[in-house]
């Protein structure tokens, strides 16, 4: 409509311009006649008439221009409104499926494997939705396969560790039986049986470690924490460990700060961690090395540390040291008999207690492994719980 209006306006304007031009021609004729002195009166009238006629024409042009402008503006507004309505409809029909996609993608990323979208709307958004659902199906298939593999692995480790224990019991038991009659054995036979027993103990340690890891992976490694006094536990552990460090002429010093706060732990598990750390220090340090076990309170934590002056751990190995099957350079010593699982398990156990395990080491100077455990809220002598603020 606006186009027709504008066309008509241009045509009309051309007509008016032509009329104005003709009016000038008429006026020019009149002025020529006036200059030649022919009919001066008529010519003056004609000039005045033409001037008036042109004014009138110009006014009509300006009126028409305004009308056309209004018409054009109205047309534009109508057109834009139409386009806007059209687009907002389009946007609305894309927006809902897109919002749903964003929502589903978020849920999928957060671990909801069932997140899917309803396919619909424009063909483009429908295609996008179908592609998303296909991807989510594939992810769900893979995840469930992985879960099943994980379950099989955990089950396998649990069963293997269980089934291996019976024959191991026999081997160890009969070797011990032989040792009961060591007086009737030759020196060589005694040494042989000792090797069998050593390896049995190593196998038991490996089985226990594997079982702990499988339980940890399956989320079944649990602790039964109780308020525990660390000093006797440490003393006892160190005393047991001296059976190994003394033959290697390693000193094993203990330094326990007096009045350590209690910690909420399962004593057997913390002992296991300390045995792991002390065994590592013993096995990786040369004969005559100094090993120290310290315990002190720091803020609302108790820090247990195993410090040695052994070969230290290169920086490149420090990062992976708490990962399973990571072992220090075996070339350093022949005595290393660990499973490569001890530190991984120690880390799991310490974290289960709400603590942290850290290592600090300099090659050639030694290593320090620290275990930080949260102190238990203080218990008064009469068994009454003091305010936590007071304890801190």
């Amino acid at each position: 409509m606006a186009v027709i209006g504008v066309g008509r306006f241009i045509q009309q304007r051309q007509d008016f311009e032509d009329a104005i031009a003709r009016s000038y021609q008429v006026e020019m004729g009149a002025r020529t006649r006036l200059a030649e002195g022919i009919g001066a009166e008529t010519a003056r009238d004609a000039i005045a008439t033409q001037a008036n006629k042109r004014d009138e024409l110009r006014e009509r042009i300006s009126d028409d221009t305004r009308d056309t402008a209004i018409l054009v503006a109205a047309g534009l507004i109508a057109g834009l409104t139409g386009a806007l309505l059209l687009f907002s409809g389009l946007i609305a029909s894309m927006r809902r499926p897109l919002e749903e996609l964003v929502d589903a993608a978020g849920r999928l990323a957060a671990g909801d494997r069932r997140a899917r979208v309803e396919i619909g709307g424009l063909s483009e958004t429908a295609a996008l939705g179908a592609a998303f659902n296909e991807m989510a199906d594939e992810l769900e298939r893979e995840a469930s396969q992985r879960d099943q593999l994980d379950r099989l692995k955990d089950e396998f480790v649990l069963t293997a560790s269980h089934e291996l224990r019976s024959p191991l019991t026999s081997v160890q038991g009969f070797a011990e039986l032989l040792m009961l009659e060591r007086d009737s054995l030759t020196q060589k036979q005694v040494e042989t049986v000792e090797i069998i027993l050593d390896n049995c103990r190593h196998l038991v340690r490996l089985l226990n470690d594997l079982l702990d890891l499988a339980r940890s992976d399956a989320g079944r490694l649990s602790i039964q924490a109780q308020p525990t006094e660390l000093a006797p536990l440490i003393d006892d552990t160190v005393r047991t460990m001296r059976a190994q460090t003394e033959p290697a002429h390693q000193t094993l010093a203990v330094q326990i700060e007096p009045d350590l706060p209690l910690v909420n732990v399962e004593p057997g598990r913390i002992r296991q961690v300390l045995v792991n750390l002390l065994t590592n220090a013993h096995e990786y340090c040369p004969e005559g090395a100094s090993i120290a076990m310290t315990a002190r309170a720091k803020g609302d934590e108790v820090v247990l540390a195993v410090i040695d002056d052994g070969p230290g751990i290169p920086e490149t190995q420090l990062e992976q040291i708490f990962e399973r099957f990571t072992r220090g350079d075996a070339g350093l010593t022949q005595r290393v008999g660990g499973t490569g699982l001890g530190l991984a398990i120690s880390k799991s156990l310490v974290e289960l207690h709400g603590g942290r395990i850290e290592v600090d080491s300099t090659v050639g100077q030694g290593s320090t492994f620290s275990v930080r455990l949260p102190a238990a809220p203080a218990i008064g002598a009469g068994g009454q719980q003091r305010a936590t603020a007071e304890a801190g």
Partner: protein
Amino acid sequence: MARILVADDSETILLLMRTRLELAGHEVQTAVDGQEVTELVGENEPDLLLLDAMMPRKSGIDALRELRAAGVAVPALIVSAHQDASDANAPTDLEVSGYINKPIDFDRLLEEIAALTQS
């Protein structure tokens, strides 16, 4: 010196147990499953049961449950191949006197037997 009934599905373990316990002066009877345990307890009235937690046909735990239901109060130790024997999920109402892990620490086992059969 006590009369001990040992149950395990492994003949080798039974031989090991018999040898070690007899060396310590005990009188040993063996059973290969829970069914045999319930039969032998009725016949021989042992002073102590040493039962493997997991045996085919009838487990040590099932046998003990039957015995307790029948009013037999003989002390019983459960032997388990679980690292942490109390994991064996034995019900608490069976009056189990203790748990023994495999591989067996015989020094500890003999101490426990002595403590349970003193009277």
